Structure formats: C-alpha cells, structure tokens
C-alpha cells in the first residue's frame, strides 16, 4: 500500500514540476517581447541623472562644431528618439533581438545623424565629445557602439552600457548643465571608466517584433 502511495506521489511531483516548467516557458514567451530589437525606435534614459539621450539641430560652439548630443529631463520630446541599426555595410535583420556585446549604430530619428564620438574635448567637463554625425543615417566607422549587458540579449529593462568601438569610451553623463539656448540640458560625453554614470535603459519607443517569413510556394 505504502509503495503505491509513494509511487503516486512521485507521479504527482513530476506532473507538478512539468506544469511549473511549462508555465515558466509560457511566461517567457509572453515577455519574450522584452527584447530590444534591430530597427526599433527607443528613448534611452541615463539611470543616474534621470535624463534622456537627445539631439537637435544645434551645433557645438567648440570642439568639432558638429551637431550636439545632450540629456533632457522631459519625457515627451520626439527629439529623444534613436533607431537601432547594425554596423555600416552589415545591416541587422529587422525584429531580431540585439545580443549583449553586439555592435550597433544609434541613428537620431529626426535628423538622420548617428551617435558618434571622436578625439575632441567636450565643452563643459573636458571629457570626450559625443556628437551626432552623418547624413541620412550614413556617417563613418566612429558611429559604432557595443552594447554591454549581462545575459545573452539586450532586454528592455536591462541597465546597459554603450562602449565606443574605436576609442573605447563609455557613453556617460556626469551632470554638467548647459546654459542658453539649451538651458538645463546635460552634457553627454565619453569617459574611459565604467561606473554608475554610464548606465542606460530603454524607455518609451516602438519595439519591433520579429515577423514570420513571407509566404513561400516551394515546388518539389
């Protein structure tokens, strides 16, 4: 009798575990839409300073004189949208999740310029100047950044770092503020040390899900 009961309990246990596994899988599937994917349009929030990565048709008055990149406090400015794209000449497939360590470009939606850094000094803090460069999404090799996160894919609620491929600096903010005409906006620059100033997270945006393959009529 006892043996039978133990046996029953074992079956029950396995079924229960199976159910848990299956439901966990299902949960994974539901929030599978938690990935940041190629082609998505996102706003990036700097965790420490609570401002969003932003650009606009205002050029730096020093350094390279290219289009400036700043951090803004307001959450509803369309000039804070950036599109996630692959490296030059290596487009990523639309809807595919970005892997941790993958190289990407961030293209500013409204001006079509890419997040860019180079050996120029930033105006307020003396770090490395970060600008928006290029035309219609095409700039040069200094537009490429590697996404650093723990895990396999970049998830929407991850705190990630962006390390520049080429000069090895991290996209950061340390709190310096501009005056007129962009009063209150923070300076965005590149710094070589990895610290709490270079963590970013995706906020608002349009996240593209992977599509099914279009219909095929393969003949035998």
């Amino acid at each position, binding site marked *: 009798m006892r043996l039978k009961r133990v046996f029953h309990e074992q079956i029950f246990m396995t079924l229960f575990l199976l159910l848990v596994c299956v439901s966990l899988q299902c949960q994974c599937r539901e929030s599978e*839409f938690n990935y940041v994917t190629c*082609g*998505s*349009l996102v706003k990036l929030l700097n965790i420490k300073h609570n401002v969003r990565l932003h650009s606009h048709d205002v050029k730096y008055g020093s350094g390279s004189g290219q289009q400036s990149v700043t951090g803004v406090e307001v*959450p*509803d*400015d*369309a*000039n804070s*949208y950036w*599109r996630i794209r692959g490296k030059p000449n290596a*487009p990523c497939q*639309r*809807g595919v999740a970005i892997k941790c360590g993958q190289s990407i470009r961030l293209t500013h*939606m409204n001006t079509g310029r890419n997040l860019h850094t180079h050996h120029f000094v930033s105006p307020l803090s003396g770090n490395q100047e970060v600008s928006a460069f290029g035309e219609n999404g095409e700039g040069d090799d200094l537009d490429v950044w590697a996404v650093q996160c723990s895990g396999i894919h970049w998830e929407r609620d991850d705190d990630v770092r962006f390390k520049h491929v080429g000069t090895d600096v991290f996209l950061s903010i340390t709190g310096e503020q501009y005056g007129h005409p962009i009063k209150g906006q923070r300076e965005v620059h590149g710094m070589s040390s990895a610290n709490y100033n270079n963590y970013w997270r995706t*906020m*608002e*945006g*349009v*996240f*593209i*899900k992977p*599509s*099914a*393959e*279009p*219909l*095929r*009529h*393969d*003949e035998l």
Partner: protein
Amino acid sequence: MASRRLSLNSACCLLLYFVAAVLAGRDFYKILGVSKSASIKDIKKAYRKLALQLHPDRNPDDPQAQDKFQDLGAAYEVLSDEEKRKQYDAYGEEGLKEGHHSSHGDIFSSFFGDFGFMFGGNPRQQDRNIPRGNDIVLDLEVTLEEVYSGNFVEVVRNKPVAKEAPGKRKCNCRQEMRTTQLGPGRFQMTQEVVCDECPNVKLVNEERTLEVEIEQGVRDDMEYPFIGEGEPHIDGEPGDLRFRIKVMKHPVFERRGDDLYTNVTISLAEALVGFEMDITHLDGHKVHILRDKITKPGAKLWKKGEGLPNFDNNNIRGSLIVTFDVDFPREQLTEQQREGIKQLLKQKPLQKVYNGLQGY
C-alpha cells in the same frame, strides 16, 4: 401510413437540426470569406480588407452595418487566436470559453489607428487651435520578398499617456499687456505672463501592440500612419506614428516600378548551343527558361506576369526581364582546340572597322 409518418418525423428532426445548427453559432470562416485551412496571414488580410468595407461610418444607409461589423470583429478575434480557433473548429461558437473578449474597437485601432483617419480624414484640419504633440516617423525596412508576398509587422508601442493627478497646474500660458494707472492721466503698460488653471496631469508610460501590414507591391517611402500614437502634448492631442517603408536592395532582383530585373551569366557553349534553367523567384516558385537558339551577350528575355504585384491592383503584375551575359573561357586554348574551333565554326576572318560611338 406509419412509414410516411416516420419519414415526416425524421424530416422534422432534420429541419430542427439544421435550424439549431444555424442558430447555434455564426460561421466565422464565411464572415471573413476564407477557407477553413486559411493561414493566419490570409485571415489578417481578409479582416483588414473587410473592416474597411464594412465599417458603419462607410455604410450609413445600412441598418445592419453595426451588426455585420461586430460579427467581423468576433470572427477575427476567434480565428486569429490559435487556441480559440481550435475550440471553434471542434465545438462551434457555443464551445468557446467565456474569456476576455477584447473590444472590436481595440482590434480595429491596433490595425488602423483611430477611426477618423480612414473615413474622410477631415477632422484633423480643423484643429489649428489645438496644440499637437510631435509626430514619430519610423523607417521600416522591408525585403523584396515581403513586397512580393506581403507580410505583417507587430510592434509594441510604449508611450507616455496623460493621466489625472491631484491638484491643479498652469496651462495655456501667454503674454498679456497689463495697463496700470500710476496717477491721473498717467498709465504704465507692462507685459505679464498669464496662465489658466487646469486639472493636473501626469505622464504615465503605457504599452500596446500595433500591427502594420506590408502590402503587396508597396513602394519606397509610402507611409502607414497610426493616429494618436506619436508623442503626447500635455495641453492638446498626441501626434501620429508613421511607418515609412524602405525597400532594401536585393542580391538577385532589381525593382523598377512593378518590373523586376535580373542577370544570368551563361557559358560560351550554352550561349551557342542552348540551355535550360530555372530561376527561383521571391516566393520560392521557379521560373523556367528554355533556350534552343543562340543567345547573344546582352540578350533580354521578357517573362510577363513574373514581376511584382501592382500596389493598387494586386492582380496586375509587372514583368521579369532577364539579361544574359556570356562567360568566355578563362584559360587560353591549345593549338588543337583552336584548329578544332576554326573547323567547327567555318568562319572567314571578319575584322570590320567602324565608329561604334556614332551609330555607324
């Protein structure tokens, strides 16, 4: 006598059965106009087409328009969900579990944005006084395969939405001139910022899923707008989200309007002797080519109906134009081969000199 009564009975039973079957539930496949084995893509396409046709705003004279539209929404809701479709196929409409039914409005707006846009679209022009949030334009890269067969893209839109908050805030701030009297006959004009008081709002991030269709034959830079899905404006209405189609380059086919161009390199022997080949098209089907005549370098072959579907009428297709070029042998020929060829071709030396750039 008894047999006739029995057959009458059975006839009545049959009639009752049919009536019951009809009343038991709607035929969702018939409502959408698709076969029972239709793919989810066909169902989405059918829904999209019929939703535009059957919308009550488009059929103001039809008293049953609202019902037909509701039926359509119910049909799509069931057939687009794998689980629900299985249950429906097995047990009919009655057999569907009472679960959460998303309102038809939700389904419709996730496909088309707001109703206003599709029908007339005039309301937008009257809002010169209402401030509007920024528009968002997303470049959507599509492949030529998707232009040929069509596809759907689902996106998750996370955006700030204005919600009520306790207290008041200042809104509609403007500059006004104030006149103050300093003494008899002496006035001072000053500029002042004057605001109204409005209920306080805060911005809260919300998410919803939207779906945009890549229609067959879609052209570069065509836009699919979703009204109100852009950036919010705290004192007014939100801007729009627009998907702008960008057709990517293809390694095999080049698009010109509805026509497709491709190139094939053949060997010298094939050019002289003829050949048979298949070109794999964008959706996998094979285009057969059979040549039994000599093919000159630069020769073009027109395959009607093998181009892209026309955007306005999917039944019209462009052509596929195949241009052949000939690969000459890489290695130099041996003496024996040279003699052999002279014998085979029996050509006298030609060597005609002329001005090729002026059409002589």
